């Protein structure tokens, strides 16, 4: 073994080291996905099944036929699926923290935030898979986004970025909750109404007024609208700005409190 003759001891972690530590942690997350591909079932099967199901069930009723419903439903399902996937971040974080390996992370001289940041970073892979599959399913079923390929990619990046931001909320639940199943429970309770009480599946003007009020302030609605504008028309509007601002606010609020809660448990 090589001999580190003079240890240089530092009591702080530099920004560069924080990034490197987080990337190593993300690499670990990717290796885990590679080793246990079955944990990708939700991001692979859900987009396929939901896209097929919702399109053929609601298509005729809402838009008259399936083809004209696709531009409405595909962005809706995309947002619902990818945001739903961000719950897994919190659940897996809780599971990870309950295992002995987290003790080793904590006893190593690495940036304290790295185990969190890295895990969240690795999860963007899951969002990417879900995004690609949803668009692909749509394409197979006849969806031809007017906005063009470039704008579809932008829309995809927007959804992935927002899902990453929202995953900080579930990471917070993951850190403070006692069991992984309670994280799942709380998160679904929050997410289910949020995704359905939006414009993701049906036109808003069919809803009663009081519901329209909620739907219009729901951030999911703005995200869905932003994706539709980008993918279907190639336009950028107020909804896109709102989505990005919302994502930034979520990260600004939840990243610090999640890290604080995590540190207190460290």
């Amino acid at each position, binding site marked *: *073994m090589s001999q580190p003759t003079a240890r240089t*001891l530092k009591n702080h972690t530099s920004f560069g080291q924080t990034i490197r530590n987080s990337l*190593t942690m993300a690499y*670990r997350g990717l*290796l*885990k996905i590679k*080793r246990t591909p079955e944990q990708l079932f939700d991001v692979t099967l859900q987009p396929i099944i939901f896209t097929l199901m919702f399109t053929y069930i609601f298509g005729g009723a809402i838009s008259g036929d399936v083809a004209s419903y696709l531009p409405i439903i595909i962005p809706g399902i995309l947002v619902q699926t990818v945001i739903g996937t961000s719950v897994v971040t919190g659940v897996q974080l809780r599971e990870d923290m309950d295992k*002995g390996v987290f003790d*080793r992370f904590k006893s190593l001289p690495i940036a304290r935030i790295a185990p969190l940041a890295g895990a969240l970073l690795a999860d963007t892979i899951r969002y990417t898979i879900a995004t690609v599959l949803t668009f692909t399913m749509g394409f197979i079923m006849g969806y031809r986004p007017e906005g063009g390929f470039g704008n579809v990619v932008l829309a995809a990046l927007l959804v992935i970025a927002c899902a990453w931001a929202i995953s900080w909320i579930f990471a917070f639940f993951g850190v403070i909750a006692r069991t992984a199943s309670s994280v799942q429970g709380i998160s679904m309770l929050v997410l289910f109404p949020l995704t359905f009480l939006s414009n993701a599946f049906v036109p808003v003007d069919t809803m009663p007024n009081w519901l329209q009020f909620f739907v219009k302030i729901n951030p999911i609605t703005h995200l869905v609208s932003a994706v539709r504008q980008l993918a279907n028309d190639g336009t950028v509007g107020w909804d896109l700005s709102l989505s990005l601002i919302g994502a930034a606010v979520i990260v600004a609020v939840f990243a610090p409190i999640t890290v604080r809660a995590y540190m207190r448990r460290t």
Partner: protein
Amino acid sequence: MNHIQAKEPKGEWAVEARGLVKTFGDNRAVDGVDLNVRAGSIYGVLGPHGAGKTTTIRMLATLLKADAGSAKIFGRDTVKESQIVRQLIGVTGQYASVDESLSATENLVIFSRWLGLGRKEAKRKAEELLEEFGLSEAARRPLKNFSGGMRRRLDLAASLIAQPPLIFLDEPTTGLDPRTRSQMWETIRRLVNTGSTVLLTTQYLDEADQLADRIAVIDRGHVVAEGTVDELKASVGTSSLHLRVSEPRDIGNARRLVEQVLGAQSSVSSEAGKITAPMADADAITDLLIALRAEGISLSEMSVQKPTLDEVFLTITGQGVNHEAEAASAKEVTA
């Protein structure tokens, strides 16, 4: 393994803990623990399940904040200089702290990368350690298929990547079979020969006896005794002599002779025909044996028992062993 300069971080004490307290709800898991561990030694923390051993280690290893008291690792405060302390220690937990879903190599590479090794270096380091711990063949298999012993060895290997001068081993052999256990002991001894300091906790008295230079006995969050193994044994008292006569009718006579020659009270378990007496002076045994022969009493069995750490432990913690009951159960086993 090359050697590590244990003296490199300042001070001769690897661990200095003062009045560590940790409370979980109503339970004072650790209630004022003081520990001093000299650099380059193996220090054993011995106690029953739930005595506060793991909590103590977790506080020393910066995994848990103490409610009161302070601890220094090579003179560095575990709270104020926690990131420095983490560069000086390796921790092997009670439950193997490695990634189940990854392979042995992947685990070691990731930990190495975190400790600042480059991609190639990390890979080489992982190979070296796997070789050293006899895990090369299993390097690519996921840990799910590892035995308990292999997992522990991998865990220990992971703690040694940075060659830390202080290694915490929390119950390193709990749940291992005897052969794996003695392999683990060998590894631990080798570590100290290379200059590392080891602080280990154990529930096994023979393990502390086998490995540790000094021992702290801990019970209900308190250190109830501290010293070298011999000191602790001596504090419990002398060795005892056990005799068994061939003819049960000789018991009375034999017992009279034992008490006469050794000058001490003896006890006898009638069914087994076994006489037990404290033995202060080994030389007196010669006289006793001659006297027994002169009386024509033949022995079927004779043994001298030094106090075991079990007795030390039970005497100190006050959960005195019921000797009658123990003798009775021993008989059941032999019968």
